[in-house]
């Protein structure tokens, strides 16, 4: 009886104080996130003490030793690489997800699903390397261009890298469509294809769009593979096959060798801050999409 009492006392003790553990963890986590945002933002915005914002955002001459800090080529590089990788990756991913969710027999699903998760685990430097040894020479010979580095090669590899995101999230969305909708459509005489195209896909659309926006966030933040394939030169690309640079690629190439606190280093932090704001915008977009239901 005494023992029982003690055990009970202990449970009460845990019950009272364990919440502080959770609160402390939550507090620490928020503090970490907030201080990172604050640090990157502050360091980045210090750039404007030396550089005109108009110069930073709307000119493309990046020559830090001559005090020229125009980041337009990086911003446009990031923008086009992301857009093009979605243009390649999204249709493929969505069709694949429809196959996985509605067409594939169970045993194929059983193989495909773990395989998909596996390929999230491949480090991006490996994708970059594959691009460097296979894709670049292929683009060189098939388009007869000088190098093959550029937006096209980077976005082709990125399209492959974002596939798992689109596939698995769209697959979930498609499979969460209530069976009643599907059955009703079939019962009304719609063919199987009509049902998928006109009922299942529209019903899953918010989920599919969310997967695409998440994939965009992944694509715009991807650094290593892009850096290895884009060419990294601060010129606005005049074709898909000329070397250019993106925000991430320029940060990774230059940050390690700039003096912290110099205008150059601050400008790189500002580029990171711009990336953060872009991702934030995308996350807000996802939340809006998630709230809306088409059917």
């Amino acid at each position, binding site marked *: 009886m005494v023992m029982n009492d003690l055990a009970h006392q202990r449970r009460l003790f845990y019950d009272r104080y364990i919440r502080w553990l959770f609160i402390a963890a939550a507090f620490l986590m928020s503090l970490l996130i907030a201080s990172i945002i604050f640090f990157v933002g502050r360091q980045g915005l210090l750039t404007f003490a030396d550089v005109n914002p108009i110069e930073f955002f709307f000119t493309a001459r990046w020559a830090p030793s001559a005090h020229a800090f125009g980041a337009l080529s990086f911003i446009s590089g990031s923008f086009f690489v992301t857009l093009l990788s979605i243009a390649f990756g999204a249709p493929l991913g969505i069709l694949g997800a429809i196959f996985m969710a509605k067409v594939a027999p169970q045993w194929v699903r059983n193989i495909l699903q773990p395989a998909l998760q596996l390929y999230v685990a491949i480090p991006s430097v490996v994708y970059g390397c594959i691009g460097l040894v296979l894709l670049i020479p292929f683009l060189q010979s098939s388009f007869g261009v000088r190098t093959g*580095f550029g937006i096209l090669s980077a976005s082709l590899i990125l399209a492959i890298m974002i596939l798992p995101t689109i596939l698995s999230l769209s697959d979930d969305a498609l499979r969460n469509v209530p069976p009643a909708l599907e059955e009703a459509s079939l019962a009304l005489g719609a063919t199987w294809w009509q049902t998928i195209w006109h009922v299942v896909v529209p019903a899953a659309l918010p989920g599919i769009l969310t997967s695409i926006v998440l994939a965009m966030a992944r694509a715009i933040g991807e650094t290593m593979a892009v850096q290895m394939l884009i*060419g990294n030169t601060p010129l606005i690309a005049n074709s898909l096959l000329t070397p250019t640079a993106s925000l991430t690629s320029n940060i990774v*190439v230059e940050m*390690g060798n700039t*003096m912290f606190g110099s205008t150059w280093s601050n400008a790189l932090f500002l580029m990171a801050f711009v990336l953060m704001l872009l991702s934030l915008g995308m996350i807000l977009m996802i939340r809006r999409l998630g709230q809306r239901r088409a059917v």
Partner: protein
Amino acid sequence: MFINMKKRKNLMALTSVLMLSAAIFAGCGGSADKQSAASSGDTLEGKISASGSTALLPLLKPAQEEFQKAHGKVTVNIAGGGSFTGMNQVAEGSVQIGNSDVDLPAEYQGKDLVDHKVVIEPFVFIVNKDNKLDNLTREQIIGILTGKIKNWKDVGGADQQITLVHRAKSSGSRATISDIVLKGQEFTDDAVIQDSNGAVRTAIAGTPGAIGYVDAPYADDTVKTISFDGIKYSPEAIINGQYPIYGYGHMYTKGEATGAVKAFIDYVLSDEFQNAQVSKLGFIPMSKMKK
């Protein structure tokens, strides 16, 4: 009650394991201490921390091992991070030695940093293997690097576009080439930028018509090394002053080096280390230049 007993047992087991391992470690440590003290018999002790240039890392790692073997009470920590990281940290005082491939830039002047040149780092120009040319003059190279010459036929080669593959604007190698070869003229931006020697070499090996520069040890047989102004690169050509493209590996200290730090830098500069390791890694010993 029963559960409690079980837990206590686990706890006891854990404690005994910990104590046992602690005893083993203590035993090891003790004997190692005695050994080194007996063998060296010197008074050097303390910790040396260094950071900076990744190009110097393969050179300093063996130095660290040998030095620690000789001086049991000294611990040496060497990290990478890049030349500017090294100079930054030594200026702030967070490390004792800052390794760098470049001379002290203007921002760091007046911060009481003392330069120790420890090694010579030669650079070579490399081209794709299909390139028939063996030599480029200084004027031709300047024309290519500044973007004025865009086709190999203008320098006596095949009718093929030139692709410049090289390093980022913040790179120490790029700064060296800019100082020695370009002498103030600007590189063209019409180039492919890679962020390491190895990546530059890979890109040049895979790109017909490509040219770039790397630290000499990186020029292997996947690419073709070309002569500069008629002089083929060799350590001898640098030593007798014919081949001009090289920089120094620096170890910066804040104020004059003292104690273990001084001993470590002296060790890196010693004939014993320079002759055994430096040439093997493709660098050139400092002592050879002084002759």
